């Protein structure tokens, strides 16, 4: 299996477009997933009976093959970017919801009581005490969700989207390995860069973790 380097040189514009479109799909899904899972996690954290239901439901969603999720969305949103993003969002929910609930659980009860004793209202406690303290665990979830989404975008190639995944279909149909190899390498690089950036973001957002070291 040899790489046709001239093909890569001839297709740099296409590769850039596909990479950007790939990234856009993955990041939209993670952002949307965060917007949905944060309030749900707070509910699951506060109301115990709902916790099992929500986490169990998200686990079941995880077992449905991604290709089926994309296809099942077709009658609702058609052959569009929306289908890709919504499908990916469903997958991010599993990781984001579980980690956010675990993060909130990990905040010591004493800390919350102290905030309460100082007269801090529940919403304020949540925003200024609980969420910041839960941040490391939540960020771990965001990192997993991001890397997972970047890898999963390719599956949407079956419904005509899929960013770099289109290189896989192309290579498969023409029996030509170069685009497939390039697609795999670019996907891995994209995941690596995104993950490193998230580590940097976490470092900036949790200054109290640094002072201790």
């Amino acid at each position, binding site marked *: 299996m040899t790489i046709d380097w001239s093909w890569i040189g001839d297709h740099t514009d296409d590769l850039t477009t596909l990479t950007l479109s790939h990234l856009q799909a993955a990041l939209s899904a993670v952002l949307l997933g965060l917007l949905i899972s944060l309030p749900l996690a707070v509910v699951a954290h506060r109301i115990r009976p709902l916790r099992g239901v929500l986490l169990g439901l998200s686990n079941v969603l995880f077992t*449905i093959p991604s*290709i089926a999720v994309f*296809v*099942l969305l077709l009658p609702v949103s058609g052959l569009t970017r929306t289908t890709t993003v919504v499908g990916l969002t469903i997958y991010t929910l599993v990781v984001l919801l579980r980690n956010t609930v675990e993060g909130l659980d990990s905040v010591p009860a004493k800390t919350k009581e102290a905030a309460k004793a100082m007269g801090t209202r529940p919403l304020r406690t949540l925003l200024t005490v609980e969420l910041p303290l839960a941040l490391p665990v939540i960020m771990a979830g965001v990192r997993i969700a991001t890397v997972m989404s970047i890898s999963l975008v*390719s599956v949407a190639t*079956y419904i005509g989207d899929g960013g770099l995944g289109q290189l896989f279909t192309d290579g498969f149909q023409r029996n030509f390995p170069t685009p497939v190899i390039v697609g795999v390498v670019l996907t891995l690089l994209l995941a690596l860069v995104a993950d490193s950036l998230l580590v940097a973001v976490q470092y900036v957002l949790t200054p109290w973790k640094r002072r201790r070291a």
Partner: protein
Amino acid sequence: MYELFKNLGDWLVSGEQWTGPDGIGHRLAEHLQYSLLATLVATAIALPLGLLIGHTGRGAFLAINLVSFGRALPTVGLVVLVFLASGLSMWPVYVALVALAVPSIVTNTYAGMTAVDPDVKDAARGQGMRWHQVLFQVELPLALPLIMTGLRLALIQVVATATIAAYVSFGGLGRYVFDGLAQRDLVQVLGGAVLVALVAVVLDLALSGVQRVLFRHRPA
């Protein structure tokens, strides 16, 4: 929507759908074969590796980075790549499924091993236990819950992803998803997806049952 679910129900329970080489019974058996064999091979590779890394404390860097690499690896790309390299065989499917399962088993085994209290290990060594006794009689039983979590996670992922076998013209429940997709037959796609999800949930419950039995014998 109601019509769709009614048709889905009819599809799932109709007798002819369950028999023959294209029947659900046969596809189900194929799907189970791909998933279980891949998970078994992955366990045979990943479990010793995770135990070794956790026991010796060496190669932790490998264990931690392997999992993000595994998560980032696009399975479709891997399948196509191995397919182009090896031709029409089951290799691409098994390689991709094993590659998918190994990281979560290694890291969970490693995490379980490092979570064992060092004092407990010291006490075992102080009693004159050899390294393999410490590993198999102390560390392994204590690490078991996290190891089992890793196995269950890997199995769910493998079952869901074994769908991809149909993409390179093999069987399994993915057949319904891809054939349905090609024929614009939503009921078939939905049926395939539901069956895959059911298999994953049932296998996960079975493994958690095994886990419970294993724990009953664990000395408190």
